[in-house]
């Protein structure tokens, strides 16, 4: 399968990498002792490592091409990835869902509160990912300022609590709605923009919100932030810190389930189809009678709504907000979750969030290389699986009596 030509190519690749990484990996200068040590063994590792990886990648591509050529004649159903096929079978789907739910429910009792806390963060990112997925994955509007809505939610809880003493449960919907309102506010000026231009404007919007929070001291207390935000209450019950964390965890599980339910139904509806059509071709979409303005604004505001909800929860969880939590990096991570998981696919986004949030947590030992690994994973994904971990599969509909054996099947 692997020819001499490919081996030669890999050899060249590894030589090139040795050359590129030479100053970084081999030369080590000690400025105090004024000595230079040459770590030749590193060079050998780099050479062997890149050689093997390049060969493996080549073999993978060859296999993929073979598979593609074999599948050329098959219909779109045949290309369904294996996870999707499992999920589409009601026989597997419900037991699997029940198992996952059960595992999620007992999780904080088996593992430590610390683990539950990390899991809560992961769940928050899943919901954020699902919200952004509406905007980016389904409606195809590249939004790089998503964190702005997250900030709106967090600050609305912090400020409303500070000034008006409003509780968590009152502010939760208010935060969501305020964020949705900001979504519409951002949506209006960018209605005509698409792709790169939209990305730049939304990026700017995200930064504007953060800078306002940072500099308008009278309003937001500036960089020092707002502290002593109360945790969510449970019918006035007193809770210890541990209990409060576990309560938070269950709260997130609940919110996640609601989110999945709602997002799934939205995607599989008249509105969801309009979003997809908008992503595919804006002009054709309008010519088919879809109101572009309204559809885009709904996408923006619904996406922002979830960010607002999670913002409120974030403020309640950490009991402290300051502008440093809402940098562009957050937007980038949420966007990576959507892209890594698979645009438009709910299962994909869940998986993407778990990978991107949990891996760095558990690989703390390698924390120095975290950003390096992050970048490498994303680059590798774009090369090997541009459609994401789990690509979205279109729904198969059934028609009156004509093909009644194909029951209603969902894409998730």
């Amino acid at each position, binding site marked *: 399968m692997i020819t001499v030509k490919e081996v030669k190519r890999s050899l060249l690749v590894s030589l090139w990498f040795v050359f590129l990484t030479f100053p970084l990996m081999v030369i080590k200068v000690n400025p105090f002792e004024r000595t230079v040590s040459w770590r030749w063994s590193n060079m050998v590792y780099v050479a062997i490592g890149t050689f093997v990886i390049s060969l493996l990648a080549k073999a993978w591509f060859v296999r993929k091409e073979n598979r593609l050529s074999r599948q050329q004649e098959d219909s779109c159903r045949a290309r369904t990835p294996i996870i999707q096929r499992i999920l589409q079978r009601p026989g597997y789907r419900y037991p699997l869902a029940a198992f996952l739910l059960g595992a999620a429910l007992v999780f904080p009792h088996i593992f430590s509160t610390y683990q539950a806390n990390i899991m809560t963060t992961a769940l928050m990112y899943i919901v954020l990912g699902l919200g952004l997925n509406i905007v980016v994955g389904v409606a195809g509007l590249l939004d790089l300022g998503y964190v702005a809505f997250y900030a709106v939610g967090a600050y609305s809880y912090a400020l409303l609590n500070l000034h008006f003493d409003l509780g968590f449960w009152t502010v939760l919907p208010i935060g969501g709605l305020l964020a949705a309102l900001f979504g519409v506010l951002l949506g209006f000026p960018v209605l005509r923009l698409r792709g790169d231009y939209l990305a730049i404007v939304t990026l700017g919007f995200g930064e504007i919100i953060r800078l306002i929070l940072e500099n308008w001291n009278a309003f937001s207390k500036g960089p020092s932030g707002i502290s002593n935000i109360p945790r969510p209450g449970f019918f006035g019950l007193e809770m210890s810190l541990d209990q409060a964390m576990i309560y938070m965890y269950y709260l997130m599980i609940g919110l996640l389930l609601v989110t999945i339910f709602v997002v799934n139904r939205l995607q599989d509806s*008249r509105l969801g189809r309009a979003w997809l059509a908008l992503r595919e071709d804006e*002009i054709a979409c309008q010519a*088919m*009678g879809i*109101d572009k303005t309204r559809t885009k604004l709904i996408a923006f505001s619904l996406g922002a709504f979830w960010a607002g909800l999670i913002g409120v929860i974030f403020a309640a969880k950490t009991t402290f907000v300051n502008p440093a939590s809402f940098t562009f990096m957050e937007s980038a991570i949420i966007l990576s979750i959507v892209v890594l998981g698979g645009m438009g696919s709910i299962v994909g986004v869940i998986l993407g969030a778990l990978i991107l949030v949990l891996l760095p947590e558990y690989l703390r030992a390698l924390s120095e290389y975290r950003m390096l690994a992050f970048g490498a994973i994303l680059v590798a994904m774009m090369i090997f699986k541009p459609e994401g971990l789990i690509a979205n599969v*279109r729904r198969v509909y059934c028609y*009156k009596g004509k093909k009644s054996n194909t029951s209603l099947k969902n894409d998730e």
Partner: protein
Amino acid sequence: MMNKSILEVNGLTMDFGGIRALDRLDLDVRPKEIVALIGPNGAGKTTFFNCLTGIYLPSDGDIRLVSPQTGKQSRLNGLKPNKITKKGVARTFQNIRLFSQMTVLENVMIGTHCRTRSLILGAILRTRKTRKEEQETIDKSYDILEKVGLSEQANEFASNLSYGAQRRLEIGRALATEPFLLLLDEPAAGMNPQETADLVTLILQIRDEGHAILLIEHDMKLVMTLSDRIIVMDYGKKIAQGTPAEIRVNRAVIKAYLGEDVGSDNA
């Protein structure tokens, strides 16, 4: 006039900077009529379609639509494309613009969008009304697919269809918006003779169901067999109109297509 016009265009002008793409064009379409718009490349035919469907805002002139059902008259200038579609004008595109990553059936279902209503709450709660509407949408879309001969490929991605099938799907998608006037922009482009013959049957069938059709086409055989009337354009102006037989012998048309007839000048 036996029938009242459903589309009246008066003095339509479209300028792109210094270039006049449409020059005081007059045109009318009557119910259940097939009108062909022909002319050399760059004559302004597609520009005319884009003005009609709201993609361009005309510089001058009037486009009026009269609904054959209600007799209500409305001016189309300056309306958004989706409003015009809702009023009963649907179109296909010269360079196919399907939603390629959606299934064939979903493409047609998109067409029903302007005739259905459910929104966020309906989608989340999935009320009885929404479910009924969804099922009606699916059934109606499937019927349209059967009409255009694509029901077998209903669950394929639109991008997997052959070229001719994609053109037919565009027509199906346009039909799903329930238009009384259908605009076809080069529907036979790139089709083989068999596909073109099927297309003629399809267009006649659509006409018989009560839709008026305005089409741009370069395939003269198709134009001559299908059309009730032909309008010839050149450099944004209407240079001739009439029945196929009249157009065939019209000197201005021959001149526009073939250049000055040198032989007859010498004679």
